[in-house]
């Protein structure tokens, strides 16, 4: 395996003392890899990734980025340390223009490098150029996600961490977002993501972990996990993962 960029060891974390949500989870992310963290609902995936990003209090274990201990570093120092996080929802500033959304994230860059770096982001995400003066709240769901990712990438992070980038998006946009992530990896960025949409995530991932009840229970090559019976059992109880149907909308929706 290539050199390790992010090393999370025996992580314990939770919002309230004595009530851990993450209970001793360990993962490693190698340079240039896409690593996916899967798991059933309520497995603590989101808390796990937020704890790494400094947003959920850590009560045990360590997080090491590029050989440097970043456990419990304040969230606002993470971009400087090389970790850029994209939250699941509310990941843009809705009343600010697209350009100001990018610019406000450039606090750690040299002032004179900022305009060129913003243009680089526009080159990588051409959809955003036409909207540069638009309030970000008026973007479509897919474009918002693009802006959120561009905003995270603008500071040259060592690792890009995403919390369910496909959540709440229509299928068309889900495909677009995963295509975008695959493209970003090609440019050499290391990616760690938590995903509910296992199929799409495993299709672009290199390796994956299955998190159950706040603990990493299984690990493997992404392309093989899809048909792995152990995963199916952990993830869904009994059904093999490949038998998972697209979630039906049920009758609870619009009348």
């Amino acid at each position, binding site marked *: 395996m290539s050199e390790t960029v992010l090393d999370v060891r025996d992580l314990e974390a939770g919002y309230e003392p004595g009530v851990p949500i993450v209970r001793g989870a360990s993962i490693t992310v190698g340079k240039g890899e896409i690593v996916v963290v899967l798991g059933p609902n309520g497995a603590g995936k989101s808390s796990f990734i937020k704890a790494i990003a*400094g947003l959920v209090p850590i009560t045990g274990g360590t997080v090491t980025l590029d050989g440097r201990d970043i456990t419990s570093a*304040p969230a*606002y120092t993470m*971009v400087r340390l090389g970790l850029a996080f994209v939250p699941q929802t509310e*990941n843009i500033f809705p*009343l600010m223009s697209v350009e100001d959304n990018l610019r*406000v994230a450039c606090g750690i860059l040299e002032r004179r490098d900022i305009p060129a770096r913003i243009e680089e982001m526009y080159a990588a995400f051409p959809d955003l150029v036409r909207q540069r003066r638009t309030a970000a*709240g008026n973007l479509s769901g897919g474009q918002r996600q693009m802006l959120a990712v561009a905003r995270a990438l603008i500071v040259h992070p060592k690792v890009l961490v995403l919390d369910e980038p496909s959540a709440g998006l229509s299928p068309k946009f889900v495909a677009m977002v995963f295509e975008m992530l695959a493209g970003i990896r090609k440019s050499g960025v290391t990616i760690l993501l938590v995903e509910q949409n296992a199929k799409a995530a495993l299709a672009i991932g290199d390796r994956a972990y299955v998190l159950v009840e706040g603990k990493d229970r299984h690990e493997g090559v992404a392309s093989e996990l899809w048909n792995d019976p152990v995963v199916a059992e952990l993830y869904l109880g009994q059904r093999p993962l490949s038998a998972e149907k697209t979630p039906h909308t049920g009758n609870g929706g619009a009348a």
Partner: protein
Amino acid sequence: MSLQFVVDGLLTGSMIGLGAIGVTLTYSILRFSNFAHGDFMAWGTYATLTIVGAIGAIFGKVAPIGPLSFGWPLLVALVAGMAFTALLALLLDKVLFSRLRSQGQAIIVVMASFGASMALRSLLEFTFTSRPTYFSRAIQIAMPVGFGIRITADQIALLLLTAALVIGVHLLMTRTQTGRSMQALSQNPALARIVGIDVARVVRVTWIVGAALACVAGVMIGILVQIRPFMGFDMLLPMFAAAILGGIGSIPGAVLGGLIIGLAEASAVQLIGAEWRAAVSFIILMAVLFVRPIGLFGVRER
């Protein structure tokens, strides 16, 4: 009817507007209504007055600048007073507001600001008595400028100062990284931290800007009206009305709201009598809350 109310209204509106900038910033960034904001005004004014007195004791009598009622000591004292008021706000935040804010209940912080307001005001009365005082007792001659309007040199200077400060703060908010960070923090505090914004630093800047402008507004009242320990507290309702009318979080909105309320008050004095003056901002506040609660430049919460 004389158009004099336009000048009076613009002046009152400038004082209200400068104060309302601090109110709206505190509300949108720190997420509470700071009822001690008026007392920052009064403290800033008394600090400025004290420094003017100290300069007078050292340098003797200083001639006023041109046709104005004041000389360079007041300008120097104003800058020092702004710094003092900013330090006062930072101190109050450190010992009181930040501790309560971390407990996460806005209403407790609001109540604490009420308490701080009373304590600050009482301290002023204790130190300076409640008797009104003045920067200068000289009487200025108002120049006629047509349409039955008369205006003094002080009034012109202070209107220009207000315009310069408002433009400055607007540029700070929209063109600088600090201003963008303030906007970001008001729109989404969690995301602001994620993109690398040092929240504690932005909070400090917010207090400094709000308190410094409160001091200027207070000194304006001191120059044009009089200095009393209650001078700031009496401005609270118009300031909040202006901030809400303009739309919480909007600097141009706060200033425009201040001017509208100032003009409405001044015209009410002429049309229906001075005793109704105080009711005007209350009526406007009610009307806004009923008709357009987000204010002129406000944006609906998601």
